[in-house]
């Protein structure tokens, strides 16, 4: 054990001296997480959306007025800015001139069409350079259309049930429009298990670069051979296993330190303000992730003959696993085969676990995720051990 620690200490000294571990373990992930967070974070952060939507009510009926009131409320809440246009033509011109991002036009006769069960269309006009504004307007209109369809069905059902005895059709429509939605979605972050953009990219880049960081330990075995020092280590009065163990300690320490620094720094940086969640839970995920990364990178190292070859193969493997594991974008939202495949990677489970923690969960809530990552670590390390013996030979 003492010899292993001495080898690890020497390796850590060398890694700090050539700064490679600092660059791959801390600087690169922090830089990319910051960039992703700053660029893509605004897209997914509702507070950061600066969209102006015009609403034109050419109908003026019961149903359209309800919609206008709802949009005004969204404007009051600061979700986006609302202006009220006087005509469809004027709104289209404003959108074309870029004065607004999008316009929602409710045509004349819309309420009558709804009540009468006839087809009618809400028109959304978007500015060509504002896809987000158009998306928001379309989402609002689509939501409204869904509600209107519900009203239409309710009114139609009431009419069918009462035969010809329906006295006050306007009141029925108003009641239907005012009826609460039977099923709603709680969109608060705490319950959604969805990481904020800054937390997602901080965690994703941390676990992605973790695979590059831990490689410095295991690749040291190949470096000892190419620079001739393996002969001295083998000739020294130390157990051969201590050479491997020393390299493993190096990988582990580099991985843990890298992740710890990233967790702390991304939590403290004001423009990131990442929320990693329960510290003990994070520690469990981090340790599991480091062990899994060590297992994978050690397997790769045992197949390579030189450090350069190993580095190249490890980079490919790290990228593939990172991509598949959703380190660059959340693959789970895609569903299907890709989402299922992503569960073969420790990255996906790591990010899932963090989602649980970020949603207020504790260590007990991430046992499944940590378990899968550790299973990955055990399988890969077990396979690596069967091949490691040849790396501590001449």
């Amino acid at each position, binding site marked *: 054990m003492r010899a292993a620690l001495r080898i690890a200490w020497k390796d850590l000294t060398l890694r700090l001296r050539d700064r490679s571990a600092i660059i791959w373990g801390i600087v690169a992930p922090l830089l990319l997480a910051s960039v992703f967070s700053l660029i893509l974070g605004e897209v997914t952060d509702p507070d950061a959306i600066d969209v102006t939507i015009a609403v034109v009510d050419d109908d003026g009926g019961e149903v359209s007025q309800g919609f206008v009131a709802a949009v005004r409320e969204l404007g009051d809440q600061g979700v986006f800015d609302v202006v009220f246009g006087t005509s469809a033509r004027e709104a289209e011109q404003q959108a074309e001139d870029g004065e607004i991002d999008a316009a929602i036009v409710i045509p004349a006769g819309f309420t009558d069409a709804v009540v009468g069960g006839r087809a009618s269309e809400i028109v959304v006009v978007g500015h060509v350079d504002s896809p987000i504004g158009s998306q928001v307007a379309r989402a609002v209109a689509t939501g409204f259309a869904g509600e209107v369809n519900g009203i239409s069905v309710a009114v139609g059902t009431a009419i069918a049930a009462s035969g010809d005895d329906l006295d006050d059709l306007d009141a029925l429509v108003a009641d239907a429009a005012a009826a609460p939605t039977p099923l709603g979605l709680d969109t608060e972050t705490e319950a959604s298990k969805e990481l904020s953009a800054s937390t997602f990219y901080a965690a994703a880049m941390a676990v992605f670069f973790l695979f590059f960081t831990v490689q410095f330990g295991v690749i040291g075995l190949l470096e000892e051979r190419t*620079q001739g020092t393996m002969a001295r280590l083998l000739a020294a*009065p130390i157990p*051969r296993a201590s050479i491997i163990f020393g390299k493993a300690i190096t990988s582990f320490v580099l991985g843990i330190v890298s992740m710890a620094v990233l967790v702390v720094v991304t939590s403290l940086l004001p423009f990131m303000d990442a929320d990693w969640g329960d510290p003990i839970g994070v520690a469990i995920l981090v340790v599991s992730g480091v062990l899994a990364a060590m297992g994978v990178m050690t397997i790769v190292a045992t197949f390579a003959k030189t450090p350069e070859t190993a580095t190249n193969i490890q980079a490919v493997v790290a990228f593939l696993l990172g991509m598949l594991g959703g380190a660059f974008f959340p693959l789970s939202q895609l569903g299907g085969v890709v989402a299922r495949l992503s569960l073969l990677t420790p990255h996906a489970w790591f990010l899932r676990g963090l989602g649980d923690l970020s949603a207020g969960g504790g260590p007990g809530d991430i046992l499944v995720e940590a378990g899968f990552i550790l299973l990955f670590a055990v399988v890969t390390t077990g396979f690596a051990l069967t091949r490691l013996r040849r790396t501590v030979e001449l």
Partner: protein
Amino acid sequence: MSDPPVLEVRSLRKTFKDLVAVRDVSFSIAPGETYGLLGPNGAGKTTTISMLCGLLERDAGEAIVAGRPVTTSSTDAKAAIGLVPQDLAIYPDLTAAENLTFFGRLYRMGGKELAARTAEVLETIGLADRADDRADEFSGGMKRRLNIGIGLLHKPRLLVLDEPTVGVDPQSRNAILESVEHLSEEGMAVLYTTHYMEEAERLCDRVGIIDEGEIKAEGTRPELVSLVGQRDRVRLTATGELAQAANALREAPAVEDSSVGDGAIVLVVDGARSALPDLLRRAAEAGAAVTGVDVSEPNLEAVFLHLTGKALRD
């Protein structure tokens, strides 16, 4: 009663697939003795060293260092060996002192003992003033000296040097050879492999001539030369009565044969150095004016050629 050998190698054997790299190699080294393994590249020198230093598993035979059998896992035997590999085995990003300290700790040294010994070795290898410089800033010769210094650090009973002068400039080479001579005088047993005949002749008390994984012959230099049975060759460049002088010289007790050719008298002599004054006197008396003398003694190169049928550097 003589001291027991520091190294005893018995019937060492190693095969790589169909190639027998080392074939029943046996030899021993006494304390203070320098033993040379002389052979061309690929003769099996490094494989032999790798087995007796515990780097490589052997197929058969045994190696005993300081009374302890050497295996790949025998830490006590390894602690008695100082290895200087053929290729540089240093960390370029560590300083000279850091390199020595790291390996010293692996050899169970520490504290003041390690610090003192590190300073001592740096002095010995002439790098005391460069102790805190990184090894990658050193010249090739300085790196070689550091490579040797690491092997010496823990005061091993047996120092194994595997072709330590390959690719070294003449000045550094001489410094390395002087260091080995000094260590031997201090009582360290040295195993020195080389394919340079002159190094083996200068350093080694005994030499094992190895080729194709097999020790062909072993002994002191005179013993090996006597195996070949060759005599010294003396070439006397002269003017005057050369044929007459050659006949007269043939009568000298040390001369086995004489001939004339290309303006010179060529003699085969037993002990040329001691017989030379008598030979010059006889030549002058016979009417030959000697203008030049060239003495060729049989050497290990000739022995190697005789034993293997090929030159050392083939």
